[in-house]
């Protein structure tokens, strides 16, 4: 009994002794909420790199608390609300599935700014930001068509939302610009972040005879499978060269840092406005990882395409393009409008998959 009292007293002392350390800081809080682990090697890590860059650039004026591995659903709403209440001046919610939760909390806290990545619902204090990933996917498709011996690539997809369907189509378009008969097989992992499922999907595709892998999920598991099976693959969101030094051809690298710095500066000088931003290669919101493990002529082709996209000379979604069933979508020379791309729910010709309905 005596020991128990001592233990109680000790823990009470611990609690009481340190609890008075309320921080008297004037720094603005710029907060981030992540769907995965910040060390996932992919999507979330790319956002965390952006956060660290931001902290380096403006660390004397701001601090950057974050929550990681927040499940999409009721927990997300609570986590975002906790951020808003804990004095965050702005909250970046970095997954599509946080959309409804962000909208709800933003309506409750009109004085706090919110920015939601890749969503389509905005408000007076809720901006959205996105990156034209499809530009990078088009380049990847071209490389795939050059590097594949069998003329078939495998695509590990997450959810059949427009963003992902757009990426699949862009990849196939790039491939077809090199090899008109190029085929693309798709497996739906139905997750953003699950190394086990992603690896299973990768194995299934390799077993079906693809010799190039690309992914729209967050971890390096597919890259590792490709390395084991001795085929090539593309990295996603982060440079995944460490997971496949002899495997990665290039990767779409999300470079959110510049964007976060720009927006946070606007917040600090009071010029922040709710906008719906969709930047591309030319704005530096995404970059291509070094072109590796390929002959020089393929590399030169990729670099040329990249330059053309940046200069605006080439828009990946330029007609003539047919839908999967062979009907015409874009006439020769016609460019797809952003609105159509953002709501894309159909495949183009050459994709060897049925879109889940």
């Amino acid at each position: 009994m005596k020991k128990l009292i001592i233990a109680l007293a000790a823990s009470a002392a611990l609690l009481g002794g340190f609890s008075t350390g309320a921080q008297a800081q004037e720094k603005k809080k710029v907060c981030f909420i992540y769907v995965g682990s910040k060390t996932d090697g992919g999507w979330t890590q790319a956002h965390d790199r952006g956060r660290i860059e931001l902290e380096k650039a403006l660390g004397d004026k701001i601090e950057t608390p974050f929550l990681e591995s927040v499940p999409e659903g009721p927990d997300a709403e609570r986590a975002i609300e906790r951020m808003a209440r804990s004095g965050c001046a702005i909250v970046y919610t970095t997954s599509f599935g946080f959309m409804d939760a962000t909208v709800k909390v933003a309506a409750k806290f009109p004085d706090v700014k919110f920015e939601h990545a890749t969503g389509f619902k905005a408000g007076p204090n809720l901006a959205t930001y996105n990156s034209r990933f499809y530009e990078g996917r088009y380049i990847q498709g071209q490389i795939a068509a050059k590097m594949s011996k069998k003329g078939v690539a495998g695509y590990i997809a997450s959810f059949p939302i427009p963003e992902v369907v757009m990426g699949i189509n862009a990849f196939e378009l790039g491939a077809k610009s090199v090899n008109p008969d190029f085929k693309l097989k798709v497996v739906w992992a139905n997750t953003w972040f699950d190394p086990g499922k992603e690896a299973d999907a990768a194995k299934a595709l390799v077993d079906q005879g693809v010799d190039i892998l690309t992914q729209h999920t967050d971890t390096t598991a597919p890259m590792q499978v490709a390395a084991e099976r001795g085929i090539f693959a593309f990295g996603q969101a982060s440079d995944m060269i460490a997971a496949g030094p002899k495997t990665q051809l290039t990767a779409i690298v999300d470079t959110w840092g510049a964007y976060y710095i720009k927006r946070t500066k606007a917040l600090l000088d009071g010029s922040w406005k709710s906008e719906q931003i969709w930047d591309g290669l030319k704005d530096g919101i995404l970059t291509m990882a070094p072109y590796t493990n390929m002959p020089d002529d393929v590399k030169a082709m990729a670099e040329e395409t990249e330059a053309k996209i940046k200069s605006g000379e080439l828009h990946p979604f330029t007609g003539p393009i047919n839908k999967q069933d062979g009907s015409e979508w874009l006439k020769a020379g016609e460019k797809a409008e952003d609105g159509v791309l953002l709501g894309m729910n159909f495949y183009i010709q050459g994709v060897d998959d049925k879109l889940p309905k």
Partner: protein
Amino acid sequence: MRIELQKRARVSTLFSVLSPLLALVLTLIGGAILFWALGKNPGSALYSFFIEPLLEVWSLHELAVKAAPLILIAVGLSICYRSNNWNIGAEGQFTIGAITGSILPVLYPEWHSPMILPLMLLMGIAGGALYAGIPALLKTRFNTNEILTSLMLVYIAQLFLDWLVRGPWRDPQGYNFPQTKSFQIEAVLPEMLASGRAHWGFAFAIIAAVALWFMMRFMLKGFEVQVLGQSERAGRFAGFSARRMVWFSMLVSGGLAGLAGISEVSGSIGHVQPSISPGYGFTAIIVAFLGRLNPLGIIASGLVLALTYLGGEAAQLSIGISDKVSRVFQGLLLFFVLSCDTLIHYRIRLIFAGSQAEAKG
């Protein structure tokens, strides 16, 4: 030398009562050491983990939201465990309750009637109870082990839910995301107060706990549960049927888990999606034992476990500790509860095996 556990002749009543608190204190001390080892100030870490979430009204609401399913499930489980029926599959009954309860809003989204919510709750209870009826039937009919059958049924329930929301129940306007349409307003379990998100699920939990406490304390049925749990033979002499008790306890706990499921879906999520629970059905097992299988104790222990979920978030935000720490806390807590209980009933004896061994050692 070896270590042996020896049964104590007398069990201290004082420590039986104190053991959960003792376990809590030990967990706090263990946590302090952990934080210290991570290079964080243990005082402020424990403060933001255990105290900060209790300081604001909205956060107390969130605590109630998290605690409601834990308490509802755990009080049902306490009846099972008291009567020696080991229902491990509450997570599955929770899931099925959520599904059966959601049938009306998903299939009849245009039905705007105040009747819909009570019907949903009843269907949720029925679904959970029926699903718990499967292991009960298997046990009474074929003498199967309910631990295994109820546990395996969890995976079936989860995969069934997964199939439903990716297939027939998917919202056609939902950008192909695997979730149903949002429930119509009449089908949403309302919030209790305007000051936060806590919905009536918490009230259900308290009512269920008090009702079952009353039953265990003052009614013949409660006596029957205890007698059959302690000795089936003695129960038979008293005219109680162990078979009927299997049914009774499984149906009650399944029904409550089902109610928790539909309350969670209707009150806090607002639609059905592939993942509706962070493992409430399993965490509720810890809650039940931490509450000494006493329905009123379970209210307290449910709140404590709910706090470990919220505290993890608060600690991550204010001092930057990994979110994994809340799981570590839950594990520490269970470990200390079980070891305290063991040491109340047993004493540790060191046995030295003869002088030869001693000379060597």
